[in-house]
């Protein structure tokens, strides 16, 4: 029966191909989107986990915006006074408070911006995964710089090399290169806090203070106290993630609904193709009935054809999604706020199962009416058809 169904489809190659390609493009977009949603959530939570902090003190302004900038390594418009750091360290619930100063140096010639981060020794406590691939693990003196692995590659520097930053007129020595971490740290330039403040003219200013608490249960009290630090406000990673996931979720729902429209249209195409096949082969179907095929066998035949068509469409769609996925990803990353550095598209078994399930449902529903119609043919109709 499978072979017969397949032969029937191949009889009209162009028609079947058109129906399949319509469905395939719809399924491809669906697969991309659902893979993207899963990937986004996972990548965001890894990124937040890796930050190893429970709270962040950022300047006034939208804290989500601010946190996103710190996470992505963009410069903030406003900054914190260093007194905020002292206040945070005085708080009884705070175990570690690490100051951060971030600045971006635009390199229009290379079409990118270099991110410079000023740190002090406390940062190590918050970044347990901070591993040096080569050179020293920490700045030996004020003029040392530690490079993320991508940054080292781009700048072609090894530990011990000299490094001159023309924009800020700073002469530096490369102290170390970090191991690849898969986060935005890979492309950053790390320097001692004081050096960064001097380089970017931000004496006694900070971009953010990352805080780890003695006990996560103290979060609420600590938060209320630290909210009182003048010129600063508290953001927690969970809040931050929630907002982004919500925002992206809203967009995703809109997108998914339009994809479903596309799938519906594709199913209508399959329906039409099958219907035409049934009408065209009316005579043949009658003959089949005459030589002993039962109604249910005819229904089975047409349903098999429908499933073959949608199956081919789904498979082609998934292949298409894998092929064009990279392109889609780079496009999506430009538009999504706080796109993590990790790959977003991850075709999981769940996504695949979802697509295949949808394809099968589409096949059955598209084949229902044509199959019923085919089964109504009487053996006696055979000669009357033409």
């Amino acid at each position, binding site marked *: 029966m499978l072979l017969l169904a397949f032969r029937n489809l191949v009889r009209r190659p162009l028609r079947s191909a058109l*129906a399949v390609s*319509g469905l395939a493009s*719809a399924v491809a977009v669906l697969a991309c989107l659902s893979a993207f949603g899963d990937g986004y959530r996972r990548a965001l939570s890894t990124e937040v986990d890796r930050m190893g902090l429970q709270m962040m003190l950022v300047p006034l302004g939208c804290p989500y915006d601010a946190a996103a900038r710190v996470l992505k390594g963009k410069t903030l418009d406003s900054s914190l006074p260093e007194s905020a750091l002292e206040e945070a360290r005085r708080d009884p619930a705070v175990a570690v408070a690490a100051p951060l100063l971030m600045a971006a140096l635009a390199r229009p010639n290379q079409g990118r911006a270099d991110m410079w981060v000023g740190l002090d020794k406390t940062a190590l406590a918050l970044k347990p995964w901070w591993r040096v691939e080569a050179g020293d693990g920490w700045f030996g003196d004020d003029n040392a710089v530690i490079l993320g692995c991508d940054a080292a590659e781009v700048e072609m520097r090894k530990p011990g090399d000299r490094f001159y930053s023309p924009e800020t007129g700073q002469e530096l020595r490369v102290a170390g290169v970090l191991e690849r971490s898969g986060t935005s740290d890979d492309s950053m330039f790390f320097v001692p806090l004081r050096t960064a403040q001097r380089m970017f003219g931000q004496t006694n200013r900070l971009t953010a203070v990352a805080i780890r608490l003695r006990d996560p249960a103290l979060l609420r009290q600590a938060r209320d106290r630290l909210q009182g630090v003048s010129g600063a*406000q508290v953001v927690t990673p969970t809040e931050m993630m929630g907002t982004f996931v919500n925002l992206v979720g809203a967009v995703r729902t809109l*997108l998914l609904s339009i994809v479903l429209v596309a799938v519906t249209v594709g199913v209508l195409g399959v329906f039409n193709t099958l219907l035409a096949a049934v009408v065209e082969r009316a005579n043949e179907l009658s003959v089949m009935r005459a030589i002993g095929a039962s109604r249910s066998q005819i229904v089975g035949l047409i349903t098999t054809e429908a499933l073959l068509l949608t199956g081919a469409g789904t498979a082609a769609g998934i292949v298409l999604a894998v092929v064009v996925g990279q392109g889609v990803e780079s496009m999506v990353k430009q538009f999504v706020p706080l796109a993590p550095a990790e790959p977003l598209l991850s075709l999981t078994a769940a996504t695949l199962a979802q697509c295949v399930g949808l394809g099968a449902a589409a096949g059955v529903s598209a084949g229902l009416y044509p199959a019923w119609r085919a089964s109504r043919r009487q053996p006696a109709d055979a000669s009357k058809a033409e």
Partner: protein
Amino acid sequence: MTWLELSFKEWQRRPLRTSVTATGVAIAVAALFSLLSFQRGYREGIRSELDRLGAHVLVVPKGCPYDAASIALHGASWPCYLKQRYLEEVRGVTGVAIAAPVFMAAVYDADGYQTVYLGVETNILTLKRGWRISGRSAEHDNELLIGAEAARRLGWRIGETVRLPGLRDQSGTVAGILAPTGGADDTFIHLRLGAAQRLFKHTNELTHILVRLADPEQLDHAVSQLRGCDAGLAMNVVPLAHVFRTIQSLVNSTRLLLGCIALVALLVAGTGVSNTILMAIAERGRDIGVLRAIGASRGDVFRLFWLETIQVCLSGAIAGVGMAFLAARHLETWVRSKLPFAPTDALLQWQWWIVGVCVVCAIALGCAAGFLPAWRAAHVPPTVAIRAGRGLA
């Protein structure tokens, strides 16, 4: 028989197939239409909502200014408060023309209805230029100024003494009713500032301050002045123009993605149309042969099938726009439930140009989808076509 009538014949010949194809186009067009009207509606909605607020700058407690702006616009309880003494500092900043303090609180009554109380000073009237009040605004502590929608829902009339919903053993006198503004103000109950603060036990606290500048051109200067004043470190100064810009850029960034996917839907519809026309040509091989034999030129056959395609797409487009209109209300509630920062105005705002874009898209789709099949039909020699009968293509 004219060309048009001839091309309509297919509907009679294969009503189900043709209508299924047209439905495919219709669904895709409906999606495109809703999308375009939504883009427009969302932008306009946010703009007019911010306009109605009547302020250039919003001063709110620390926290996300977008959340704060959304609460100030739609009404809800605030998580934290401003001290009333900040108001004097805000008023002291050069460039500030009006600074109207607001205390907002939302309560739920037993039926789950939300009632929003707003404590304001009379200077709010200078901000809300669009307000038309029958009666007068609240001048004494137990007087109320209620929005049109709230008055309708609660059935209150001017001069009536009423129990305040959601608050136990509290009553007030309705001093005035606000003419419908089309915004969230319609559902609010306005009290005097002091009365509201006492009612909710937050004396000397505000939820937000609406600031109108003497010269809106000086926005950036005024904002930096506000941020620089003594209280500037304890509050968030939100220029509404920035909020609008941010939300706008967010919407814009999704526009391309949504547009791409709508395009995919149209493309899928296009393959369906191509397929249907191919089938029609296959079935009518003999007709084509006869047409050619009695003197129809290639161009004529091409034109016939092309017209048929465009006609299917066009009817699909019209049906799609109709469908979008019918579904608009449900779609709107659904989208609203999914969207952060949804304005109170209608989200789907259609215009004639959107209808135009949809129709043009559908015709373009028809042209593209019909070209290959029509060309194929036109280039079969008549003898082959007649002999092939139904087996063509």
